[in-house]
C-alpha cells in the first residue's frame, strides 16, 4: 500500500480526556490507518482526514459536560473542518462537546438513574446511510459498552421530527432481541437514542464506546470495528 493511500485520523486531547489513548489504539488496529494526537490548544488540524473527539472528563466536567471544552482553541478548527464536510466522530464526552458546540442537535442530560453506568448494551443500527454505519446492516445489533453519567439524550419535538425525516437517528439502545422498549434504555434517552448525526451526515456523536470493542481477545469484543471500518471505507472511497 502506498503512503498516499493511508487514512489519517486525528484524536483530540483535552485535559481530562481519558479515552484518547484507547481511540488512538483502536484506530491503529486497522491496517493502513495512521492516528495522531491533536492538542486542545492547537489551532490547526494538520493534514488529518477525520477527527475523533474522545471520551473522558474534559476540564474535569465539573460544570455541564463539554461546556468548557467547546471553547478550546482547537474547537474553532474542528468546527471549520466539519462545516467543510470533514468527518467528525464524537464518542461519549466527545458527543457532549459536539452538542455543546452546536455541531449536533439536542442535549445530554444526567442519566435518569442518577448514577454513572458502565455495562454492555445492544445497539440497533437504524440507518446505514451514513459514513459511520455504511459497513453495518440495517437492524444489526452491535454489542458495545456504555460508560457515562450524562448520556440521557433529549431534543425538542420539531427537531426530533426533522431528524426522523432526515434519518439522523443512527443507533438506538435495544434488548437482546432487537426490541427498543424502555427496558433496554440504560439512561432515559429519548426514544432510546444512542447516536445521531447532523443533517449533512458528516458529524456523528454516540454515547457508547466503539473504541473499547475492537479486539475479540478482550471483554469488549469486536463489534465496534464496524463503525471505524465504515469511516475508513468512506475516506478511501473519497480519496480514490
Amino acid at each position, binding site marked *: 500500500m502506498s503512503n498516499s493511500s493511508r487514512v489519517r485520523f486525528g484524536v483530540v486531547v483535552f485535559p481530562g480526556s481519558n479515552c484518547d489513548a484507547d481511540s488512538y489504539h483502536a484506530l491503529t488496529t486497522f491496517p493502513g490507518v495512521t492516528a495522531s494526537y491533536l492538542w486542545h490548544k492547537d489551532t490547526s488540524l494538520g493534514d488529518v482526514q477525520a477527527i475523533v473527539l474522545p471520551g473522558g472528563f474534559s476540564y474535569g466536567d*465539573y460544570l455541564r459536560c463539554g461546556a468548557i471544552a467547546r471553547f478550546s482553541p482547537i474547537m474553532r478548527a474542528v468546527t471549520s473542518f466539519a462545516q467543510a464536510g470533514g468527518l467528525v466522530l464524537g464518542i461519549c464526552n466527545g458527543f457532549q462537546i459536539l452538542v455543546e458546540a452546536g455541531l449536533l442537535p439536542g442535549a445530554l442530560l444526567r442519566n435518569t438513574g442518577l448514577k454513572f453506568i458502565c455495562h454492555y448494551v445492544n445497539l440497533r443500527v437504524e440507518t446505514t446511510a451514513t459514513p459511520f454505519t455504511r459497513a453495518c446492516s440495517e437492524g444489526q445489533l452491535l454489542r458495545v459498552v456504555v460508560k457515562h453519567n450524562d448520556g440521557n439524550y433529549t431534543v425538542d419535538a420539531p427537531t426530533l421530527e426533522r431528524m426522523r425525516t432526515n434519518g439522523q437517528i443512527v443507533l438506538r439502545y435495544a*434488548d437482546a432481541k432487537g426490541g427498543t422498549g424502555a427496558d433496554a434504555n440504560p439512561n432515559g434517552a429519548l426514544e432510546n437514542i444512542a447516536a445521531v448525526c447532523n443533517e449533512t451526515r458528516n458529524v456523528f456523536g454516540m454515547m457508547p464506546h466503539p473504541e*473499547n470493542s475492537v479486539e475479540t481477545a*478482550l471483554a469488549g469484543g469486536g463489534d465496534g470495528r464496524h463503525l471505524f471500518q465504515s469511516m475508513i471505507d468512506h475516506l478511501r472511497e473519497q480519496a480514490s
Partner: protein
Amino acid sequence: MKHTATLSDALKLGLTEPEWHAICGIQGGEPTYVELAIYSLMWSEHCSYKHSRPILKRFPTSGPRILQGPGENAGIIDVGDGWAVAMKIESHNHPSAVEPFQGAATGVGGIVRDIFTMGARPIVSLDSLRFGELTEPRQRFLLDGVVGGIAHYGNCLGVPTVGGEISFEPSYEGNCLVNAMCAGLIRADNIVRAIASGVGNHVVLIGSKTGRDGIGGASVLASQEFDETLEEKRPSVQVGDPFTEKKLIEACLELLGRTLVVSMQDLGAAGLTSSSSEMASKGHVGLDIHADRVPLREQDMEPWEIMISESQERMLTIVTPEYLADVQEVCDRWDLDCTVIGAVTDSKMLRTYWHGELVGDIPARRLADEAPVVRTPPVRPAYLVDDPVAVTNETYPQPPDLGAALLELLAAPNIASKRWAYEQYDYIVQANTVQIPGSDAAVLRIKGTRRGIAFTTDCNGRHCYLDPYRGGKAAVAEAARNLSCVGALPVAVTDCLNFGNPEKGEIAWQFEQAVEGMAQACETLETPVVSGNVSFYNESFGNAIYPTPVVGMLGVYDDVAVHMDHRFKNEGDVVLLLGAADAAFMDGSEYQKVRFGRVEGRVPDVDMELEKALQAVLREAIHRRLLKSAHDCAEGGLAVALAECAIASGATGGGASADPEARSPRFLGAQIELSTAVSRADLGLFGEGPSRVVVTVAPEQEHAVRELAGSVPVTRLGHVAGTSLVIGVNGRHAFDIPVPDLYRAFESLPVHLT
C-alpha cells in the same frame, strides 16, 4: 514567631508523655510548635507503624520476581518481557466513615499517586469494602457514598476499577472499611525510588495549592477510635480533585520518562512533612523547606499548618538546576503549579523556614524511621473456642425446603451480585480488560505481548474473628485460589491489615496471630508481601471490627489467551469437584449467619500442602485447555458455587434490563447428584471449607483431568444440562430451580438500596 511548645500541647496532639520527653531529648530542649506538630504526625500510629513494625518483619518479602519490596511507595514485581507491575493497597477507613464520598474518592487518589510516583502508569484499581448491615439506613448511605466516591475519582482518571469485594457485618457498623488497591505497569529498568539526593538540587512542589483541608487527617482520624464526636471530625477529611490528578499523572509520567527529575514522592498522610522527611532520610541528606513559598489556597495559614496539610493532588520532586526550566515547561503545558520551595542540603536535617527565619529543625531519620516502637502484650480473647460447633437438630434445625434456603443465600448481601456497585465503575477503559468484574479475579492483558496479569482481593473477616491465625492463612489461600481459578500463577501479595485499637491486648493478639497465619501461607505459596498498610483503631464506642487482614494478590500469565471464567459453557459437560469433597463446615459460614443468625465455632485450618497441589493441578489443567470453567467454592458452599456458574452462563456482561430473559438469550443449568459423608444434606450443600473448586470439562477430557490430579481428590458431581439447577443429595431429591429464578435472587441487592 518561634513559639516553644509545652507538654500540654503535646498531649493535645495525641503524643504521650514519654514521647514528649523523647522529643525534648532529641531536640536538646523544648521543641517549637512547628517541630511538635511535625513530630505528632510522624510519630502517629498511621505514619510510624509503631505498634506493628516488629510484627510485620514476620512476612516473607523477597523472591526471584521481586524488584522492590516493602519500604517504597509500592512494591514491584517482574512479570516478564521486561515489564513489571507496581502495586499497593491502602486503607481510607476513617475518612470514609466520616464523609463516605470524599473519603473513598481521596483513598483512590492516594493509592493511584503511590503507583505513578514510582514511574508506573496506573492500569487497574480494586476496592475491598466492608459495611454494617444494609438494613440500617446509615449503612446504605455509606455504601452509596463510598461506591459513588470511588466511581467519581477512578472514572475521571481513566483507571479501570476491575475488581474487589464488598461485604456486610454488624461489626463494621460504626467503622466501615475502604481499602483501595492500585497497580501500574512499568518497564523493569525504569523504576524510580523516592530518595532525595544531590546537595544543591531544588525541592519542587507540583500540583494543587495547599489549603487547610485534611489537617491532622492521619493523627486525628486514623490514630484514634470513633465516638460521639464523629461529626466534628468532618473538617479533617480532604476533598479530591480527580481532574488535577489526571493532569498530574500525565505530567509526572512525562517528567519521569524523560528523566527530568531525580526523584519523586507523593504528599499523602502528614503532607509535606512526611514526604520531605522520608525522602531526606532515605537519601541520607537534609532538606530545607521554605513554607512561605508554598502556593496557598487560603491566606494566613500558619507554617505548621502548611507543613502538615493533607491537601490532595500534590507531588514533591527533586530537580537539578539544569532541568528546572524543562520541568516548568511540562507543568505549564498541563496547567499545573510548579514551585521551588527549598533545596537539598548535607545537614541530614529537615529544616523549616518561614520568611527566612528557621522555625523547625529536626533530624530527618528520627521522624521517618526512628519513631518509638510500642509493644502491647498480647492477650488471647476470651470469646475464642477450641472446637467446631455441634450441629444438632435442636441448635441448627435443618430447613424443610433446601431450594428456598439456596435462594435465601443467593439473595444475602454478602453473596448477592455486586453488579449495582461495579456497574458504576468504568472497568474497561485503557483497553486491557480481558475479564470484567463478577468472576473470581480480574484479568488484564499487557499490550504488545501475549502476557497477562490477574488481580483479586480477599478476606473473610468472620473467619478471622473466629480464629485469626486460620483466618489469615485462609485469606491468602483463597486469594491464590481465585487467581488459579482464572489460570494465573499467584506471585505476590499486598496487604491491608485492618484491626481495632492496638493498645488493647486482645487486638494485639489478633494482629499477631493473623500475621503469623498469613506469613505461613505466603511462604508455602511463594507469594511474598511486597507492600501494604496497617490500619488500627477501627473501633467505635469501644467495639472493634472483626480482624480484617485484606489480601490483594497479583497473578501472571505467560499467555493470557488461556484465561478461564466460571460460566457453564456447554450442555453435557461433566461437573467435577477438585479438592476436599467432604470439607463442609457450619462454623463461620454464610449459611450459619443468614439462616440461623449465629457466628460461632472454629473455622477449619487450611491444609496448605493440599491447597498448593490443588492450585497447581488447576492451573496446569487450564494451561492444557482441559477445562471449560472453574469456580472457587467459598461463601455459601457448593450449592452457591454451582448456582453462580449457572447464573453466569447466560450473563454475557451487563445490559440495561433487569429481566434475565431480556438480558440473555439462554441459561445453562446442571443435573447434580452429591454423595457426601457429611452428616446432613444442608451442610453438604451450604457448608464451607477451604481448598474446593468446581470445574466443568468436556466428557472426553474427564480422564485427562483425573490423571493430572494425582493426589488431589476429584469427585464427579454431575452434568451441565437443561435450564434448571437440579440437585440431589445421597440419592434424595433436594431441589429443582430454573436458572432465571436463581438469577433474580442473586441480582436482588439493589432492592435493599431503594
